[in-house]
Every structure is written in C-alpha cells, then in structure tokens.
C-alpha cells in the first residue's frame, strides 16, 4: 500500500468519524430538546410540588418555586418589593399597608426609622424574591398518608401480580403462537373479546362473583385472576413469539427437546426484551391502579395501594395540588429505579440478538 492510498484511507476514516460525531451530536441534542418539551409538564408538576399552597395560587407566580422575601415587622410577615423612590433610587422595602394609589412601606435595614409613605400602585412593583423550595411538602405528604405502609402494600401487589401475569401469559401466548389445534381461532377471538368489551360493564357482575366467593375486602380479586393470563399480555407476547424464527425451535426439537424445554430454552431467552416490557407495563399499571383496589378494598383502608392513598388528597372541595404532586413524585422513585434496572435487560437483549449472533 502506498503512502498516498494510506492517507486517503485515513482521510476517509477521519471524515467518517467526523460525520459520525456530528450525527451523534445532532441526534443527542435533538433528543434533549424533544425530552425538554416532552417533560415540560412534569417540570410544572415538580415546581408545584415545591411551592406552598399560597405560591400555587399566586397569579404573578414565577414558574419556579420562589417566594417573596419577607420581613418580620410588628409580629407580621411582610413581603419585600423593589420600590422606585421619587429621587430615582430603587429601594427594597417591606409592604406594611397596601393601598390602591399609595402604600406604606418600611425599610428592613432600618426599621427603627419608621414607616415610609409611597405614592403609586404597589401591584405594579416587582417583588423581591428568592428561591424557596418547600421541601416540607414531601415530608407532609409522606406522613399524612402513611407512605411506607402504602408503598409496602403497593409493592406486594405490583410484584406478585407481575410475576403471575408474566409467567401465565407467556405460557398461554406460546400455545397460541406455535401450536395448531381445532378451535384456536375461536378461542383467540374470545381472548381478544375480553379486551374489546368495556371493562366497566362487567364490573357489577364481577363484584357479585367475588362477593359470593367471600373475596371482597381482600387482595384476592385483584391478584388471583392474574394467575390465569391477561389478554393484553398474551396478545403482545404472541405477536412477539411469532417473530422468532422457527428454525431455532426446530433445531432444539431435533436435539430431542420437548415443547416445555423448547419453550424454556429457546423462546424465553429470545423473548427477554418483550418479557421485560410486559413486566414493566404490568408493574406500572399495578403501581398506579386505582379504581379496582378502591372497589374491592373499600372496607380495609389499612392495606390500600398508593393510587388509592393519593385520592385522599383530592377531595371534591379541597384539593391540595402541591401535596398530590409531591406524593406522586415520591411514588415515582421506586418505579424509576426498577425501570433503570430493567434497562440492563434491554441492553442484554441487544447483545443476545445482535453481536452475539
């Protein structure tokens, strides 16, 4: 190879590298921008969770959880404003007595000098503010609804049903995806029908059935049905199983593996990303589940999951947006950790089906 060709080669490589770097930069930046827009409401939620109730309803409220600087004067907390004085100087004064066209202020630095009368409209003044996040909201939300107990029950509920539904749904989905048997079409139609029928219409008879079984007031109506597969999950896993090349199973069968072993050794490893996805969906669904736990656990307030617990902050007449949001953010912590942990399975998914061939 001549030096000329060599340099041309490295040139091309360099160019490719630069192009890749540019692409990476643009993609990541674009994603960042997109995420910023996408998460803007969440930012609002977080800001609100850090405001005090007064800050939530302040019409001139800043986007951030700031609050006006205050000054204690004669037993009252006064807001501090930037007041332009007649001599052109802008002074930071505390508002003692607001009035429509003239107000009384006091200088926080020199309260002994007495009050200052000021002509003008105080509403047009800029309040002097400082960032004052109300971390206490989290504490209040935590203690008001007995957060740890709620979390414990929610975790129990979410994890058991997740385990039940993923195992049973995978088994059923494999049956529908890979075996031919008479009536399969009708049975699958029936399975889909349980998704298509609005769940609310079967609510009353379902409640009657569980009442007969004596299960109302316990977690049984919420947990036991998950042992018998869930149509949404079956459908998703079936779709996924059907993308797995049949050659893999055939090879296993030639090696003498029966259907169960094929399922465990071939299908499950191949479908790990999909199984993780189903597990995640179910976990988050159960984590936030609200109506059915409320219905079946109404008489047993000690064991309700977090979704029901949150509802105690939103009365008809008295909602506490800052507390609901603080509690929601607290409740988000564990799912986030679980999601991050599940990520590793996704990454492994790439390894299994990609580089590893």
């Amino acid at each position: 190879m001549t030096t000329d060709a060599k340099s041309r080669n490295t040139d091309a490589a360099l160019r490719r590298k630069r192009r890749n770097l540019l692409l990476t930069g643009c993609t990541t930046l674009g994603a960042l921008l997109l995420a910023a827009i996408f998460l803007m409401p969440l930012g609002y939620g977080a800001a609100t969770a850090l405001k005090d109730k007064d800050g939530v309803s302040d019409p001139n409220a800043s986007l951030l959880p700031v609050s006006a600087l205050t000054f204690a004067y004669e037993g009252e907390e006064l807001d501090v404003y930037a007041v332009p004085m007649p001599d052109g100087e802008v002074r930071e004064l505390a508002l003692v007595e607001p009035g429509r066209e003239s107000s009384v202020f006091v200088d926080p630095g020199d309260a002994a000098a007495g009050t200052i009368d000021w002509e003008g409209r105080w509403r047009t003044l800029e309040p002097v503010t400082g960032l004052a996040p109300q971390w206490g909201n989290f504490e209040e939300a935590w203690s008001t609804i007995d957060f740890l107990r709620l979390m414990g029950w929610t975790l129990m509920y979410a994890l058991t049903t997740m385990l039940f539904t993923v195992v049973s749904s995978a088994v059923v989905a494999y049956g529908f995806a890979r075996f031919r048997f008479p009536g399969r079409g009708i049975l699958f139609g029936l399975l889909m029908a349980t998704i298509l029928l609005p769940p609310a219409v079967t609510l009353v008879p379902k409640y009657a059935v569980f009442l007969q079984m004596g299960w109302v007031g316990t977690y049984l109506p919420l947990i036991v049905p998950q042992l018998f597969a869930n149509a949404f999950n079956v459908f998703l896993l079936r779709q996924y199983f059907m993308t797995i090349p049949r050659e893999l199973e055939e090879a296993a069968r030639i090696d003498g593996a029966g259907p169960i072993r094929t399922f465990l050794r071939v299908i499950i490893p191949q479908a790990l990303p999909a199984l993780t996805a189903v597990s995640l969906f179910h976990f988050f669904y159960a984590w936030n589940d609200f109506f059915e736990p409320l219905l079946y656990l109404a008489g047993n307030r000690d064991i309700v999951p977090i979704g029901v617990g949150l509802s105690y902050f939103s009365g008809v007449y008295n909602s506490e947006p800052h507390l609901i949001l603080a509690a929601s953010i607290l409740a988000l912590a564990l799912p986030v950790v679980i999601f991050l942990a599940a990520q590793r399975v996704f990454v492994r998914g790439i390894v299994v089906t990609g580089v590893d061939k």
Partner: protein
Amino acid sequence: MRITPPLRGRGFAAARAIAVGGAAALLATACLDGGGASSASDRVEIRWFVGMGAGSDAPTIPAQEAIVEEFNASQDEIELVLEIVDADQAPNILSTQISTGDAPDIVGPMGIRGRSTFPGAWLDLTPHIEENEYDLTDFDPALVDFYRIEEEGQIGLPFAVFPSFMYINLDLFDEAGLPYPPQEYGAPYIDAEGNEKPWDIATMTELAKQLTVDAEGNDATSPDFDAGNIVQFGFGNVFADIRAQSTLFGAGSLVDAEGNAQIPEHWAEAQQWYYDGMWTDHFIPNGPYGDSDMLNAGSWFESGNLGMGYTHLWYATCCMAGFEGTWDTAVAPAYNGETTAKLHADTFSITKDTEHPDEAFEVLTHLIGDAAEELTQTYGGMPARISLQDGYFDRVGDANFEGQDINWDVAVEGMSYVDNPSHEGGMPNFLESEAVLAEYATRFNQEEGLDIPTELASLQTDLQAVFDAAE
C-alpha cells in the same frame, strides 16, 4: 385451508353461547346466596360508609377512625367497620355495593343530595324511633321534618347543619380602603364617605367591582381595566351550582306545584346578574379564571384572591387551611328587600337492605349522640343537637383560627333566613335533571355572549323532557 371470519362471526356466537350459560350460573349462585359476610367473631358487623359528603379528606380520617375504635372498645355486641371512599368515586362504589346486595349499613354524613341520588335506598327510621322511644326533643322539629320524605318516611335524623354567610377578606377591603359589610341582618352598609346604603345586591355589586383588580392595579370600574389580566376578584358564590347560586336572590324551585319544570322569575334575574358579573363586568370569576391555580382551582376564597365569597359554614373547616391573611363574616345581601341564607344539613342514614337494622340504629344514635360533638367538629358542621351548640364556635375557632376574632353570630343568625324550599330539594328523575343543569351551567360558565333568556327557555324545555320521562 381454514379461514375464520372476524369476530362478529364465530367468536361472537361462541361468546353468546358462553354468556347464556354464564347468566344461568349467575342466577343459580344468586339463588344460593346466603347473604353478607359472616364475620369470624360473634359480633355483628356494621359497615359505616363515608364519602357521600364530608369525611374523605385526609385530615378528617384519623378522627373518624378514633371514634370507631372507641365505639368498638365500649361494647362487645357490634363490630363497627369504617369504609372511607374518595368522594368522586363514592356514588359508583355505593351503587355497585347496593346492586350486588352488599350494601353498607350506615351511610353518612350525607346531605339531602345523597338521599336524592339513591331514592328508595334508605330505611324508614320511624318504627325504630318509636320502639326505642328515642328522644327527639333535643332537635329543632323543623330539622327532623327535613328528613321526612313523602313515601319514604323518616330517612335520617339531624346531625349537623351548615348555615351560609359571606366570607370577607379583610386585607383586600383594607387595601381598597373600603369599609367592611355589615354583620347584622337588616343593618345597612356604611361606605367610606359615611353614606348609609341598604346591604343588597346592588350595593354588593358596586363593592365587588371595586375589589376586582387587574395586574396594573386598575379596578373593574376603571376604563383602563384589563379583563384579560385579572389578579383579584370581587365576589363569587363558592362551590355553588345553578340552584345554589340563584338562591342568593331568594328561595325557589325548578319544579312547580304540578310537577312541571319552571324557572322562577327571581332566579332568571339571578342568572342574568351572575352571567353579566362574569362576562361583562368581570367581578365574578368565569370558568377559565375559576378553574385556574390562581383561584385554587375552585376553592376561590382560600386563594386569598377573592374579596367576598359566599358559602357555607363547612368551608371554614374543610377549605381554609391554605388561607393567609385575615377574614371575617358578613351577612347575605338582600334582594328586593328579602334576605335568604341557604342551608345545608347532614344526616346519617341506614340502608334499606341492612340485615341488622337494630344494631345499625344503635350505631346511628351513637353517631348523632355521644360522638356528635367530636364528629361535628371534624366535619365542620354546627351540631343539630341544641344542647351541643353552646360553645361550639369557640371550639371550632380555637381549633382552626387561633388568635382571630371571627364573628360567628352571623352564622347562627343566618338560621332564621334559611331557604325554603331547599336549593338541594328533589326533582323528578333527579340524576338526569342534575345532568341537564350541569350542561347548562357549563355553557354558562365557559361561553361568552350567550343570551340568558333564550338559554333559560331551552333549559326549561330540556328539564320538562326529563321530568316527563320520570312518569
């Protein structure tokens, strides 16, 4: 090759076949129904359902739990079980329970509205009152009669009353340099110049306009006022539906003596006044303003951005926790020389399907008896028991507004001006009628430029159609 047609073919037929079998199975189990849950202990289980009124907010829960514990410890015949349900979902949960034969035994606290939501679901208490020779002399007889419903009997006993009055944000009045409204029924309003004016809707409207301010500090009477940038409102009827709002202009009913739909004349005037107040003069929050955080998404007075808020006594305990500043009471303004202060009253009722009516009655009398003092304070109602009313406001004031001097006499005196007929009274086909009202109210609150007489005429037509369907 087998090609199955889509679902409506075979799948549907199969579903139908299974459905028929399933229905038969359901009927069979229904026949075998032994009934409610038999508790492990030999105590009779009495379920107390909370959520049809006050009681499902986080701060009220511990007090209720304490009362249940106390009651269970005090005797060994009855096991009282508390079921607290989010108020939004309570009607659904309760209707599911009732329809599956799993009704709770006691429901409450519950207003007259709860009764109307579940017509026919409540036990007539008359035989139990007679059998136990229950003493009713501690109640105002008019209040006892409040729960005597034609064809259904005595479906509840008085527990708490919530008179209404004006909540006044004193700081906002001071800022505007306006004197406070009167705290005595019949007293005039004395303005800043010392002129006496009758305390009526017209005077209140003027005050409200002066208390409505935009971001630049212009009030609603100023030509520079910017209606798109209001930061403080003058007046609002807090958490009030159409009937509740209109009652400020006098009691009335949408049902006439023959059972037909009507719009009382003074209610039509009220509607016009409210609508102009929202959309033309801007001193009442309209839908978009009223739903915003600035006005606490509905809990307007608590936000500190409302000068005068008209509502009931319960607002002081349910919703004033976030209020910063000083406030006091004032009487309702008169209209055409007459003052009306609408009333809410709560009760506990026993469901008709209860299997243990005697035990349930025992719990009920405990709740409106020995536990009433504690419970009324928790829910913020004035005790219906005359013997408990003494000192009640001192306790409420100490518990919620320490160090503030609030004139509660206004609330008590308001009891002489209550609305009759009640603004929560029954209507034929109640829930559907309410839905028609809600639909009207939505347009009313959200849309600019409506012609109110036309809207009311079509409201009357729609109501009549729903009333007719009841027959």
